[in-house]
């Protein structure tokens, strides 16, 4: 069963913002809203500067779903957390609850008037008909229903951002970590946000498989 997840490999992200641009262009996200953004920590410190691409992580036990007063969120069979903009009242509770700062609001005027919430849909649209104009205008492209993966990940030049079935992407990630270990480099086995989004506090990240068991690891 496909469970759609994101992994961002902080050892590879070069802060090019290609994912941000791809998302904005593909979904025609309005000015002032970024469904995805790249965050850099330890800026300028040699060897410690890390960048990570952040958006909605489509949490297994999503806090935004828990706090929404109008219950506009739903989770698809593929594990994607979506919301219905016809129900959303733009209260902003989800924004406060989200550990990744994913929910975004468009400032529409004076006195803090806000739009309905907008966030990453894993390129899976919303409750409108798949691929319809209504769906595109409200939620952006529905690439999953076209047999494609989110464009942010598919466009990533260094393949730092991987999106897809959790089993497939963890195997790709563990292969990398093992290869780094075999080459004697820092493994960088921490997958950003993995335990927070998919297991809760204290849950270990994806476990790297021993190098000898991974075919092709060099």
């Amino acid at each position, binding site marked *: 069963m496909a469970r759609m997840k994101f992994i961002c490999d902080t050892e590879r992200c070069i802060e090019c913002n290609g994912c941000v641009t791809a998302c904005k262009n593909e979904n025609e996200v309005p000015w002032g809203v970024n469904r995805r953004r790249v965050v850099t920590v330890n800026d300028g410190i040699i060897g410690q500067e890390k960048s990570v691409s952040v958006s909605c992580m489509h949490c297994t036990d999503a806090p935004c779903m828990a706090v929404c007063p109008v219950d506009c969120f739903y989770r698809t069979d593929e594990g994607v957390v979506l919301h219905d903009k016809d*129900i959303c009242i733009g209260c902003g509770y989800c924004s406060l609850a989200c550990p990744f700062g994913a929910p975004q609001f468009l400032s529409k005027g004076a006195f803090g008037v806000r739009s309905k919430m907008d966030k990453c849909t894993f390129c899976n649209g919303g409750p409108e*008909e798949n*691929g319809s104009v209504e769906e595109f205008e409200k939620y952006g492209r529905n690439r999953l229903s076209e047999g494609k*993966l989110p464009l942010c990940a598919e466009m990533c030049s260094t393949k730092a951002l991987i*999106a897809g*079935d959790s089993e*497939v992407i963890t195997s790709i990630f563990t292969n990398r970590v093992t290869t780094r270990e075999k080459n004697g480099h820092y493994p960088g086995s921490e997958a950003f946000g993995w335990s927070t989004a998919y297991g809760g506090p204290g849950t270990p990240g994806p476990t790297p498989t021993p190098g000898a068991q991974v075919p*092709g690891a060099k």
Partner: protein
Amino acid sequence: MKCNFKLLGLCLAALTLLLACSEPPEIAAKASKRPDMAPYMGANDGFMTKDWTPGNRESWIDALNKRNENQNEYARLK
């Protein structure tokens, strides 16, 4: 008898208040969750990839997993 009229009046007032709290069916329907169409049913927008059959979940998952391997350069370099 006078007491019954008073009681009837109270009941009517309560009923009116309760009716005022309800919402018209069209608004209630708009504010309730609608079922979403599963992604493996495909999209009728002319941008679908060709290597799977709309409506067949297994073929959709296989196609996505194959596409996923494009993100694995170790597999691509073989």
